[in-house]
């Protein structure tokens, strides 16, 4: 076990930013924490880093309790959301700074820095200032600065949020590869569920300071524990609708459903599990959104509206009457 978080809580003026959190992160694993803004992800990360003191609970890094240690003594590397590079220091000095602080001379540190910089593809900008390089390069410098001291745990807070959409994809892959190459235990915080699904080995979904569910991306996507997780994970977002059980069917849809007759229940339907052109459900297309590789259709059936993913080969227009089937793997039931 590389990081163990036990009954961790932190309040700010009576608000539970982190509420009784328990997590175990395996060695070498990329663990993502995802949740809406304000759910307490940053606070959780800062508690692990030692930048904030918990009200209650314990944090262990490789078996050692670090509750009372300063950030620098916890053997962590951290990349801040806005990178927090020292603007008055060169890239070389920035990356070397954790070594220099430990008493190394710049000449000695230089070799290590150059080697690492080469791995990150920033060897050519070592004598520039942070203000003179691009956002993507700044991020790599920040990554290098936190990797140079070979930390046991790598903490990343929304590392992609300051990058342009185009660079974000490659940066994401880069971080994943770097993490794999260094075999470094990583706690990765993001509000973007697709990012968490794509990058993590395991992930936790957080809401209002509480961990809702922990699992692999597949588990979380396929078996969300509750309505919140189901609604938060997946794009386009899950359809959540009320249906009435009539004769073993979820009225007004044509889905077999066991349960108390005539009771109204809430179910979730993944937009990508709706297959147009098959089945017995009948609906009118009320709106279409083109998204490049696929489109989203809004299907009106009785008084409910469903988002459905269309492949580019589906030919429908607004106002068309269509029939569709629902793949039952994409139907989620909540208690």
């Amino acid at each position, binding site marked *: 076990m590389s990081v163990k978080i036990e009954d961790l809580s932190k309040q700010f003026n009576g608000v539970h930013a982190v509420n009784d959190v328990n997590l175990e992160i395996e060695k070498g694993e990329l663990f993502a924490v995802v949740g809406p803004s304000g759910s307490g992800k940053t606070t959780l990360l800062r508690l692990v*880093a*030692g*930048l904030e003191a918990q009200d209650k609970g314990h944090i262990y890094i490789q078996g050692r309790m670090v509750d009372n240690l*300063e*950030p*620098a*003594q916890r053997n*962590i*590397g*951290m990349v*801040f*959301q*806005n990178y*927090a*590079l*020292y*603007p*008055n*220091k*060169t890239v070389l000095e920035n990356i070397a*700074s*954790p070594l220099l*602080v*430990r008493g190394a001379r710049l000449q000695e540190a230089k070799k290590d820095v150059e080697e690492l910089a080469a791995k990150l593809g920033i060897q050519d900008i070592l004598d520039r*200032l942070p*203000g*003179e390089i691009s956002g993507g390069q700044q991020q790599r410098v920040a990554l290098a*600065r*936190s990797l140079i001291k070979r930390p046991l745990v790598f903490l990343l807070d929304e590392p992609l949020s300051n990058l342009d959409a185009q660079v974000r994809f490659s940066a994401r892959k880069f971080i994943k590869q770097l993490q794999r190459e260094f075999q470094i235990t990583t706690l990765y915080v993001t509000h973007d569920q697709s990012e968490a699904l794509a990058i993590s080995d395991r992930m936790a979904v957080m809401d209002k300071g509480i961990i809702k569910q922990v699992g692999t991306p597949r588990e979380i996507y396929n078996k969300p524990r509750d309505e919140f997780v189901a609604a938060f994970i997946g794009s386009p977002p899950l359809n959540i609708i009320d249906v009435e059980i009539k004769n073993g069917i979820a009225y007004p849809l044509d889905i077999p459903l066991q349960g108390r007759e005539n009771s109204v229940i809430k179910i979730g339907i993944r937009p990508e599990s709706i297959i147009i052109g098959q089945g017995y459900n009948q609906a009118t297309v009320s709106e279409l959104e083109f998204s490049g590789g696929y489109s989203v259709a809004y299907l009106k059936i009785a008084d409910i509206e469903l988002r459905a993913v269309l492949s580019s080969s589906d030919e429908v227009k607004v106002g068309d009457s269509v029939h569709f089937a629902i793949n039952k793997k994409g139907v989620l039931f909540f208690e």
Partner: protein
Amino acid sequence: MHRLSANIFYLPAIVYLAAIGLLPFALSIYFSSPSGNFSSYLQLFRSKEAMEVIANTGIFAFGTAGVATVLGLVLAIFVDSLKRLKRAFSALGYLPYMIPFTASALVWTTIYDPIYGPADYFLSLLGLSRINWLGQPSIQIYSATIVSIWSSIPLAFLLILAGLSSVPKQVREASAVDGMGMGEYYTSVALPMSRNSILTAFLMTLIIAFGNFDLPYILNGGLSYSMATLPFLVWFQIFYENQVAQGLAAAVILTIIVSVFAFILIRVNERRATGSKRRLRISFRIPNRIFNLAIKMVTILSFVFMVFPVYWMILMAFRPQSLDFVTPPILYPATFDVSTFISTAVQSEPYVITTFVASAITMIVTLLLAAPAAYSVARHGRNWLLILAIYLYTLPSASFVFGAYFIVYKLHMLNNWAALILTYPLFTVPFSIWTLSNFYKSLPRSFEEAALVDGYGPFRSFYQVVMPLIRPGLVATAMLSFIFSWHLLLFPLVLSETPYQFNFPPTGSFTVTVFATLFDPTSLGSSVGYNVWAQLASSGLILSLPVILLTLYSQEYLLRGLYLGGTKG
């Protein structure tokens, strides 16, 4: 926007500044050598005394700026590194800022007293021999410099603290994760990042010290050259010795010196706006333990130095004279006696009325002139106006005093409230343009763009959309203008002859700063022939009270205004 309406914004301010700033300035230059042969300058340069005064001015100004910047820096580091009680310690740090120069100097004359003064008492406690601080020619200028340092630390402290606090929180946390201690964080990250603030603090305290008339004037009871600085010489030659041309020659030389530093300040200010990328290398490294210890020691000593004179003033104001003139001095509150304070307050009434009226009207006039002018700096790109404002602001009152006197004399307004109201905005409008333009610049343009789209004209958009949004800036500027006017000494001294006579139309325009000097037996026009410290301290307190109350009441506003403009006090 139409060119015409854009110009109307700054027209009133520029007309005023031309008439009461540039014209007196030009008159000063002209009358410094009316025949055009520069004989007054030659005479000045040939006189040994004048050379001594110029040297003194250098000692006084650089001594003040150097030491005040270093101590302000240490205090700023201390307060910035605190996790709690930041506000309380900041208040200690700007305590002397709330005491006008005139009151400070008066209090320090008692501290420096060769028989009963606490300064010599402290020396004797340290086993050192007594010093005649204000009497011995070879050390007089240093004694004056100490008082000036005392008054200037707060400005340096506030400007540098603002710089240190503008380091992003995450950069600071990154330094903690990297394992930097306080010493490394400040020397290698925070101070290099705040170097423009530090430079500004140095230049501001330097420029103010160069132009400081009040301190040397009051401390220099014997009118000796060995304690005089250039502003004092200007006043002394023109208004005491009637050597107008020579006095103005000194004024022009002072102006030239200050202009050099004003130029640097303007450059630094531009850099602060755009954010320079040039780097500064700091190669020394101090062990954290030693750094922390040094900061704490210097901070404690500085706080004692800063607080004691204020404490001493309050102590003297509220005790009978008999407790003042004993050796060793009594440094603890033994009795509480308000009688002297009350009688002095009653006596101060005509002076307080004059000062209050002049400061309040100045405050309003300043807002009316500066608010639209600063808007055209921020939004219509009238950068030259900002440069002019900063420049006029840095010039000492001695640069204008003769020209202003000349104009007031020609207008038959001497010894009249109108004279103060006419001339005071010269000091408040320039810094208000500077401060307010920064407030406007910090306001997103989208508000005005929305107003424009909604069909507002330029003036309506300014009054109905922009003005309400920069209310904090207007409040700060108004307060600072009031405080600033309240402080002024040189202008009311030369433009007035008597206290207010309680008549109508009002005559008599001595201000409360002049009132305070009446109780200094060594000062010109003093009303007493021997030491009356209780009255002196009471008058100092009366002079300081409105400033203290305003400052405490509107701390937040003032600090913002101060940082954005970088204002002197």
